[in-house]
């Protein structure tokens, strides 16, 4: 669709004054900056611009979208309820879940298998946004390598081990939801009625 001409605002470049037209102050200013950096480098007083990767690992922000993890609940079981919201939301179709009746009394459904093809994934983070129980999250682990395609297909155990690893390192990602989770996450708890009033 063409843009309506009345929606277009024309912006003129600012008029240059006499001093600006000489360009000398700008040249002197640029030279001063270059000289400052030169002095800092020679004397070693400035900040380090280069990180010595891989000996030195970068500190990434906690909302970085790297490798997935599958969270555990307070009893150490997989938190996922196999609702397929992540695989439905996934634009790359990289999540494959097989659901089954759960072996536990307090839950109805759980993922029998949960497989993410990390090579197919585009790390958009739609899966963690879609998850109603905050079971899947993207961690700040970015240096993902494997020797074969099979190694890059992460199953449930591998994704749970990513959770254990990030908890051990203390690099938990930030929670994607604020406030209480949906009732599917915490069945039979007191928080259920408060959260359900917001959901119904």
């Amino acid at each position, binding site marked *: 669709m063409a843009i309506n001409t009345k929606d277009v605002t024309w912006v003129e470049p600012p008029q240059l004054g006499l001093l600006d037209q000489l360009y000398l102050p700008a040249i002197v200013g640029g030279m001063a900056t270059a000289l400052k950096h030169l002095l800092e480098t020679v004397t070693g007083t400035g900040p380090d611009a280069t990180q010595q990767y891989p000996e030195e690992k970068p500190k990434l922000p906690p909302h970085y979208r790297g490798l997935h993890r599958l969270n555990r609940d307070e009893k150490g079981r997989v938190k996922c*309820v*196999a*609702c*397929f*919201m992540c695989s*439905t939301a996934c634009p790359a179709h990289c999540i494959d879940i097989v*659901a*089954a*009746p759960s072996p536990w009394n307090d839950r*109805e*459904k759980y993922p029998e298998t949960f497989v993410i093809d990390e090579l197919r994934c585009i790390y958009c983070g739609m899966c963690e946004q879609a998850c*109603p*129980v905050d079971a899947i999250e993207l961690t700040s682990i970015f240096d993902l390598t494997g020797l074969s395609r099979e190694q890059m297909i992460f199953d449930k155990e591998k994704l749970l081990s990513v959770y254990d690893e990030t908890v051990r390192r203390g690099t938990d990602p930030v929670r994607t939801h604020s406030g209480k989770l*949906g*009732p*599917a996450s915490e*069945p*039979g708890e*007191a928080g*259920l*009625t408060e959260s*359900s*009033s*917001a*959901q*119904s």
Partner: protein
Amino acid sequence: MATVYVNDQPVDIGNEKLNCVQAAEKAGVLIPHYCYHPALSVVASCRMCLVEVGEKKPDGTISMMPKVVPGCQTPVKDGTVIVTRSDKAKDAQERTLESLLLNHPLDCPVCDKAGECTLQDYSFGFGKAESRMHDEKKTPPNKPDLGPNIDLFTDRCIMCSRCVRFTREISGTSELYITHRGDHSEIAVFPGDPLDNKLSTNVVDLCPVGALASKDFLYKQRVWNLKTVDSVCPGCSTGCSIHIDGNKGVIHRLRPRANPKAQGHFMCDEGRLGYHYANSADRLREPSIRGPHGWTPVGYREAVQTAQQGFNEHSLRSITGVWAVLSPFMTVEEAYLLALWIRDFGKEARLVLGPVPREGEDDHYPKDCRGNAAPGVPKFTIRAEKCPNRIGVEAILKHFTGTVIGFDAFLTALGKGHVKSAFLAGGYLPTGRGHWFPAEAVPLLEQVNMLVVQEIFTSALSQKAHVVFPSATWAEKEGTFLNHQGLAQEIHWNSAPPGESRTDGQVYLDLLGRTGLMRAHQLRREIAQVIPSLSQLSTGHLGTEGVLPGEAPPVQSPKRKIPVS
């Protein structure tokens, strides 16, 4: 002629006896409802269909009733005025939904109904965004042992009582009842009397929420991943209209499709759960030829050529020794093409109808308290004839041979050694009732010089063959089935046949030497021209409800979505 005004829109309802919900549906207006179902009695207990109803007087004035009334229980007449979206009606619908959601757990992420749940749909369309409930929700325990095929998630139930009325009015077995009162109400069965009648899984389709779940489908798929095609159940000659729900070439469930001409709204459990063989990994996947060194899997082209050559040679030696057995599981188109091919060799080539599986007597519902069929017109019948298309195949056979020759003639000829080349057509459902071909006759097949067999699974029969074509199941082909009363219905494919196999119709087309793909609607036109008794196929389209003998077929079928796997 009676005219009803739905939201100011006049609708002509003719002489039909309708209620407000049905009249509004005619006008294309949805009155939300849970407990009302066209096949069940009206109880007006869910209060979801509350609307404003009034009357237009002959002088043009309109007088409305002072309160909202349940639409399902209010009959319409000439001049009835229905207002579904007035402030009063909207308010009633909102409050009803709020009340229904008071104790509903909202565990949609783990509920199998999510995506096709009317509680979700109506909450979105007619509900309010918030609940004023501050107390804790009730969480009664689930009842996984409600029946062998049914699971009850008690807390999701909204007490519409459709399932209870189904067991009382349609199956007549009355297993279900409502126990307790008020918000303690629960669906229950009596101890030692589970919900195990032959129609029991219909309560899952009737349930407007996810309270009743089919154990067969439980947690298999989310419903929005399923691709649906319209088809016909091949289990018996009732020919129930069904939906096949599949994903990625796998059938996940069958659902009844409402069709007043065929079976009504329901289907039996045997038909509904009888699809698993189609998903089996043990199915025959490629054609094979038996040579001097045993079986060799071959390409499809080679198998077709071998069968053509074999039949050509042996038909020249003895045309009366050419036999073809047409199974009553074939579609009309397949039977026509096979008969055409066999009759190409000569007029004396024999065509016989394969064994027609029968089991017991026709099973009529509802039942009375002793388990016998209740008096009156049956509301559902499971037929004893366990094949979908005997009538259609017989019509083809009558055209080609003048009369229908039974399977016994083939066995007699086989016993006498008169059968020189034989084509045994496929499609028989593998059931617990044993193989369709009598075991004692299998050794006699040794003397047949050219035996072509179509089978879904390897069997003693296919071991005796010279050429084996893997047969496609009914969910993999297009075609026509004629049910017990001659109702012609279209079937459509949900997935491609496995491996190297082709649909049976395609095999016959290639044997005939015709080019192109098997297109059912074109063949229907051809058959109707050749065979006057099947004139109901003349346009090639049968619509969604099918065409009875003597009825005019529709000119165009509704556009069908091709399933993408």
